[in-house]
Structures are given as structure tokens and as C-alpha cells.
């Protein structure tokens, strides 16, 4: 990872940030004016992907082989022919909502709920039918969109056959055999937005974002529609954390890459009112596995703020010290010390979908 470089995917283009003596600053743009829904930051050789969601002309995927200096359109994931009478959402790509790479495989999660894999860095894609054909998929619901979608992809760093993903609204799903079979791994999550007898149904949970600790991969953190959950057994069981100050509602979560007990969240009032509590932008941090949280405010605006950090717009770098978060109204803030102190990078970017280091 290039520790001094970061990427911001926005409603109006992809912005490259560079960290210099004065902190982070915009160093370049690509696809200016076009909606960028997700990016995969450069690998060691400089190869990276950007997913566009053109309003009229569909979802497009572009690849760079030189860390964003030049871009070439490559094949976008595409659904196969929809069988006659197939129920559920149309077999049409609505958005590339998530991308992750591990062990030579690139995964792309999509609206309306299909998982795609590429073994050639995006040149070709295959729909993972073993998940798409699960009968439970037809009970998934939209969460923020008309159709369900896969927003979180957590490959296991040392077990190439293992991948956990998050679906809004369909819970967490895990494969341990490279995608041949899948199991819903949402036990413990609870959905207050459902009738009481369905609240524990693993297949309708709305995990807004799930992240995995790189150094302790069995530890996963989840910012759920109804609160914050943590798993220490690879997703087999989830425990709700209740001692959360300010608000348990939010979209984003980041976990320290070396310390599985440290994670960051950006609270908002509630699902019905997606703004910071009392107009003050804060970050909640735990350093003891969620038993206690600190509310971090230094350097963040504390009045008249209506910014919301969406699920992919909070990121931590490989050191665990640098953080970036971007809002749906174009604010971008950075910390170089794990969130103790924040700096404003910009208040004038387009609506921010995703932030990534690298």
C-alpha cells in the first residue's frame, strides 16, 4: 500500500489524494463528471479498477495498469439470460457496490445481489451461481435501494477459500470452499425493522457494513441498521455491543488492521434522520473490543453539520494511524493519529461514495 496516496469515489468522478507536508490534498481526477460507485486501489504492480454508474448508459468498469495515470474500459460484470418465469429482481446489473481482491481473485458485489469473480483482474467476470441460485436470495430485500445488494466483501487473508460478505438486506454469508457452497452467518443479529417474530431471521438482516481485521481475521465488526455487532469466530456468532455513546445508528465501520479490539464508527441520529446528533460531527472509537467507546471530536465541526458518512466512506490505512472519512454532501476529513485529531481536507467535493487508501 502506498501510505501517502488515497482515492475518493464520488458522484462526479474519482479523486486522487496525496499526503504531503500539509496533509492530504487532491492531486488528480479521473472520470470527472461521472458517478464512480466503487474502486479497487492499486495492487503492487499498479493495477486498479474503478466502477462507474452512468445514469443512462449503465454500469462500466475501467482498469488502470499504472495507478490511475491511464484508464481503459474493460468488461463490466453482466448477468446471464434471465430464465422465463424467474422471480425476484431482474437479472440486470444496477451497480457495482463493492470490490475486493485476495489471492489473485477480484470479487465484485452488486445490486441486485449478485456476486461476481474475476481471475484476470477484471478482463472477464463470472456470476457466482452457487450464491445467486440460493432460494433464500429471493427473500432478500432492498436496503437503501429498490433491490438488494452486496456491499461488504471480506476475504480471509490466509485462507484463500474463505470469503464473508454482507448483504442489505440479506445478512452475512460465508463460503469456506472458494464459493462452492454458502451459509448464512448472521446468528445474533437482530432486525428491529421487522415484525417481532422475524427479527432474528438471519436472511433479512441489514448489516450496513462489515469489516475484517487483517491480523486477526476471525474478528469482524458490523455496523448494522439496528446497532453495532462483533464476531470473534469468523462470523459464526455475532454479539451486539450496547455501550455505544451518541447513537448506535450509522453506516460506516473501520477496524484497525493489527489490533482487532480497535474500531471506528461514525454515528448518525437514526434511520429516520440521517444527520449527526446535535449537528456535531463525531467518531466513536473503541480500543477494548467494544466494551467501551470514546467519542472523538477534536478538529471536527461541532455545530451546524448535516454530513453523513456512507458505508464505504470511512477507511483506515495499513498502519492503523491514518483515517479518512467522506460525506454524502462532499466533506472530507483526515486523521494521522488514529482519530484523536482531525483535519478538514475539503468541504466542497461531490457526494462521496467510497474512500480507499493505497
Amino acid at each position, binding site marked *: 500500500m502506498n501510505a501517502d496516496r488515497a482515492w475518493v469515489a464520488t458522484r462526479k468522478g474519482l479523486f486522487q489524494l496525496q499526503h504531503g507536508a500539509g496533509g492530504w490534498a487532491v492531486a488528480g481526477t479521473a472520470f470527472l463528471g461521472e458517478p464512480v460507485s466503487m474502486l479497487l486501489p492499486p495492487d503492487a504492480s499498479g493495477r486498479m479498477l474503478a466502477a462507474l454508474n452512468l445514469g*443512462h448508459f449503465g454500469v*462500466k468498469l475501467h482498469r488502470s495498469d499504472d495507478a490511475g495515470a491511464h484508464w481503459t474500459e474493460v468488461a463490466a460484470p*453482466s448477468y446471464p439470460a*434471465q430464465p422465463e418465469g424467474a422471480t425476484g429482481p*431482474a437479472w440486470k446489473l444496477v451497480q457495482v457496490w463493492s470490490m475486493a481482491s485476495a489471492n489473485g481473485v477480484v470479487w465484485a458485489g452488486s445490486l441486485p445481489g449478485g456476486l461476481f469473480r474475476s481471475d484476470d483482474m477484471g478482463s472477464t467476470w463470472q456470476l457466482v451461481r452457487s450464491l445467486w441460485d440460493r432460494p433464500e436470495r429471493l427473500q432478500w430485500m432492498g436496503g437503501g435501494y429498490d433491490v438488494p445488494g452486496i456491499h461488504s466483501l471480506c476475504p480471509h487473508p490466509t485462507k484463500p477459500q474463505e470469503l464473508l460478505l454482507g448483504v442489505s438486506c440479506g445478512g452475512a454469508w460465508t463460503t469456506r470452499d472458494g464459493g462452492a457452497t454458502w451459509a448464512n452467518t448472521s446468528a445474533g443479529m437482530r432486525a428491529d425493522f421487522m415484525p417481532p417474530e422475524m427479527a432474528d431471521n438471519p436472511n433479512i438482516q441489514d448489516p450496513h457494513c462489515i469489516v475484517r481485521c487483517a491480523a486477526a481475521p476471525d474478528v469482524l465488526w458490523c455496523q448494522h441498521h439496528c446497532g453495532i455487532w462483533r464476531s470473534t469466530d469468523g462470523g459464526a456468532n455475532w454479539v451486539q455491543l450496547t455501550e455505544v455513546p451518541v447513537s448506535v445508528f450509522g453506516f460506516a465501520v473501520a477496524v484497525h488492521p493489527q489490533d482487532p479490539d480497535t474500531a471506528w464508527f461514525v454515528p448518525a441520529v437514526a434511520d429516520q434522520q440521517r444527520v449527526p446528533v446535535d449537528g456535531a460531527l463525531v467518531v466513536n472509537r473503541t480500543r477494548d473490543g467494544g466494551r467501551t467507546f470514546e467519542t472523538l471530536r477534536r478538529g471536527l465541526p461541532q455545530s451546524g453539520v448535516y454530513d453523513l458518512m456512507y458505508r464505504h466512506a470511512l477507511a483506515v490505512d495499513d498502519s492503523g494511524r491514518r483515517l479518512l472519512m467522506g460525506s454524502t454532501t462532499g466533506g472530507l476529513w483526515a486523521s494521522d493519529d488514529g482519530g484523536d485529531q482531525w483535519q478538514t481536507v475539503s468541504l466542497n467535493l461531490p457526494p462521496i461514495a467510497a474512500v480507499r487508501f493505497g
Partner: protein
Amino acid sequence: MARVRFTPQLRRFTDTPEIDSSAATLCDALEAAFAANPRLRGYVLDDQGHVRPNVAIFVDGRRCLGAAALADPLGPDSAVYVMQALSGG
């Protein structure tokens, strides 16, 4: 020959060849254009081969609508315009 033209809005994404085609249907005329630039197909049609909802196609001044639009007949001198609808953002 029917002539197929694409909105200039598409040129910032991909090549938009102007095609003269003896095709008898809209579908076949578009296929001739897609043969010249295969990348163009995904900008006009979705995964299922349907015209994207915010792409507007006109033949001789009439908008082609509905699921069967691609089967619309073309005359020997038809003018086909593939445009960007103002719906869709």
C-alpha cells in the same frame, strides 16, 4: 439504406460509428453498429438485451417504445437516432 446515428453524448465513452444498413429491423441495424464497436452494445442495451430505460431510440421521427421495440421495422431510407433520454439523471 437505413442510417443509424448515435447521440454525441456517447462519444466521450466509446466510438459511435455512423452506420448505413440494409437491415429490415431496428435490432439488426443496431447489431451492425455493435459489430463495428462491440463495446457500444452495453451502452445501449442492458444485460438482458433490452433497450436501457434512459436511452431513447427514434425511427423516422417516432420513438420506439416497449419490450418489442427492437423488432420495429425499418424502411430502405429510415433514419435511426439513438439518443440520451433526459430522464435518468
